């Protein structure tokens, strides 16, 4: 296991370099000029100087190398400094990746500002999805073809087919416009200080969480059901039943334990996807999170910010792929990593 982990960690390095290259190349080769957002009145010579100061005249490999140094050396160092309150070398001189849109602000600071909102909505949605989906999938599989199963399967197929931007708008229509239960727009400035503001926070999170959670729960419930159905006809289940265990015991101690192994892996693999899914949900409810930051940056042609956010999404995918593999190995002793 340890050796496997080391090898997997080593393969992450070329993967991340390749991904960073793709992201950098797409944005660098694309037409479009960072100075185009500046006022028209700037004279062409001055514009040329601005371009030069931004390093846009350098050849591609140089630009990529410099960007890599900023990204893989300077940014992590600054993050460590910030996290532990220590000084490493000359922090003032270190070149940070800065935003073009809001000039001079380090991109990382902007991102860290947005992470809590996204994490709150995404995390809560995922928790809700898991809590709802796993029991439904289990019961559906045990009572296969029962009414519960048929209704559950149908609803989960619907949940998986209706796009989140439509469920979101429908919920706004029903719960904000008609019933007036929840606010239409998520207020990021709300501070949770007392019971009242906590309730307010829950109320405004209810719809985004429900939309994301419903979609995710549909996928998870389908998967849990089919994983349970794979295990129910197994010999060990028949043996356990033949030994005279009650059905409840067999289901919980035998079938469930084995069926949840792939489900847990899927849960880990789905975390990056739900972050991407949050881009849409954040737009519907105007949650001021990472997705909204990305959309805003794309519209402003703020290339450093777009590169960084996209790269962070890619890092999430790579990290959770590794985590899923490791969890699978821990939970299933039949998997041998050699």
């Amino acid at each position, binding site marked *: 296991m340890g050796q496997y982990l080391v090898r997997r960690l080593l393969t992450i390095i070329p*993967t991340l370099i*390749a*991904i960073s290259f*793709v*992201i950098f190349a*797409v*944005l660098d080769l*694309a*037409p*479009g000029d960072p100075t185009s957002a500046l006022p028209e009145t700037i004279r062409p010579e001055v514009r040329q100087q601005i371009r030069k100061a931004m390093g846009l005249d350098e050849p591609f490999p140089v630009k990529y190398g410099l960007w890599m140094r900023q990204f893989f050396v300077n940014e992590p160092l600054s993050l460590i400094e910030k996290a532990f309150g220590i000084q490493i070398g000359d922090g003032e001189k270190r070149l940070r990746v800065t935003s073009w849109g809001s000039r001079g602000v380090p991109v990382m600071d902007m991102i860290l500002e947005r992470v809590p909102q996204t994490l709150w909505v995404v995390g809560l949605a995922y928790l809700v999805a898991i809590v709802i989906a796993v029991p439904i999938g289990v019961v559906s599989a045990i009572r296969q073809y029962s009414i519960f199963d048929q209704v559950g399967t*149908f609803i989960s*197929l*619907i949940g*998986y*087919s*209706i*796009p989140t*931007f*439509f469920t979101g*708008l*429908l919920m*706004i*229509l029903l719960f904000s*416009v008609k019933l007036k239960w929840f606010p239409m727009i998520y207020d990021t400035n709300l501070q949770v200080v007392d019971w009242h503001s906590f309730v307010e926070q829950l109320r405004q999170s209810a719809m985004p969480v429900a939309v994301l959670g419903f979609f995710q729960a549909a996928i998870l419930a389908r998967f849990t059901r089919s994983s349970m159905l794979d295990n129910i006809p197994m010999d060990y289940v028949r043996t356990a039943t033949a030994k005279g265990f009650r059905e409840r015991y067999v289901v919980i101690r035998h079938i469930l334990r084995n069926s949840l192994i792939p489900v847990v892996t899927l849960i880990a693999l789905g975390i*990056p996807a739900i972050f*991407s*899914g949050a*881009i*849409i949900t954040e*737009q*519907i409810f105007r949650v001021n999170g990472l997705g909204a930051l*990305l*959309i805003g940056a*794309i*519209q402003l*042609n703020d290339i450093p910010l*777009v590169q960084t*956010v*996209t790269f962070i*999404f*890619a890092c*999430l*995918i*790579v990290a959770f*792929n590794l985590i899923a593999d490791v969890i699978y190995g821990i939970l299933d002793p039949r998997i041998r990593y050699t």
Partner: protein
Amino acid sequence: MAVGTETASAESLSSELPQRQHRTLWGDVWLRFRRHNLANIGVVVLVLLVIGVLAGPLIYTVDPEYSFIVDDIDSINQPPSVEYPLGTDDLGRDTLARNLFGGRISLAVGVVAMFVSITFGTLVGVLSGFFRRLDNPLMRFTDLMLALPSLPLLLVIIMLFRDSLKALLGPELGIFLLVVLVIGILGWMPTARVVRGSVLSIKEKEFVEAAVSVGTREPAILWQHILPNVLSPIIVSATLGVAAAILTESALSFLGLGFPSNVPTWGRLLFENKDFITQNPWLVIWPGLFISLTILSINFIGDGLRDALDPRQRR
């Protein structure tokens, strides 16, 4: 299809003999598919939707861009009525006409993007499954593509390249090609993996060994023996691929980064009308309903096809 002609001649031979009815491969698939209730409902709904968007604008000849304000100042944000079957939008344009035209583009994007991703995915999958030397590099490439965050990248690529393509090919064709190509290129990886897996297992089967032993050349083995046998996973992922592509296009349009505003797609209609949800909820209900129905019916069909094409279920 070679299988069909062979069995057709076999059927004419055996027709005089009092035998049980001859069954063909695709006839079997059809029979099993017919037993799948939800899939049949899906086919009916999808066929109705496709006929609607193809023939609809020919019958219902209202210009989707025409504003009825010119005739009647009160014709904005109308609910469904006899005059405007699905109502009108904030500029007095007919919602039914806009949805019919939008459906054409949404469905076209789905089908064409699916072809791009299936072609590419099948190519990569067959190559890496069949030629051992290509397997490792191609699969590493697939893994890399899978690690790219697709929605953010889609948004970025479309944002960056849409102006130059618009200038090159015109606003409609340019954006259409861009959207279709990008969705296709970022969506072929699951197909490639499934196809590779099937090719790997079929390559070891006895009939391939027999073909090799009688001296069949590699291209013939690939085309005649392996490809027909990986057709079922390809068909299933093609079906689900259409739904995924339609969903992606709507998501892009919903974020305001798909087609320009004079090209109504279902996602674009949702994006444009979401701010009028309090005044006229019908404006978002219709396109949302059409997208959902399309994707739901395609997913039902995909489920039915998966069951029908699974040889383990053959009785």
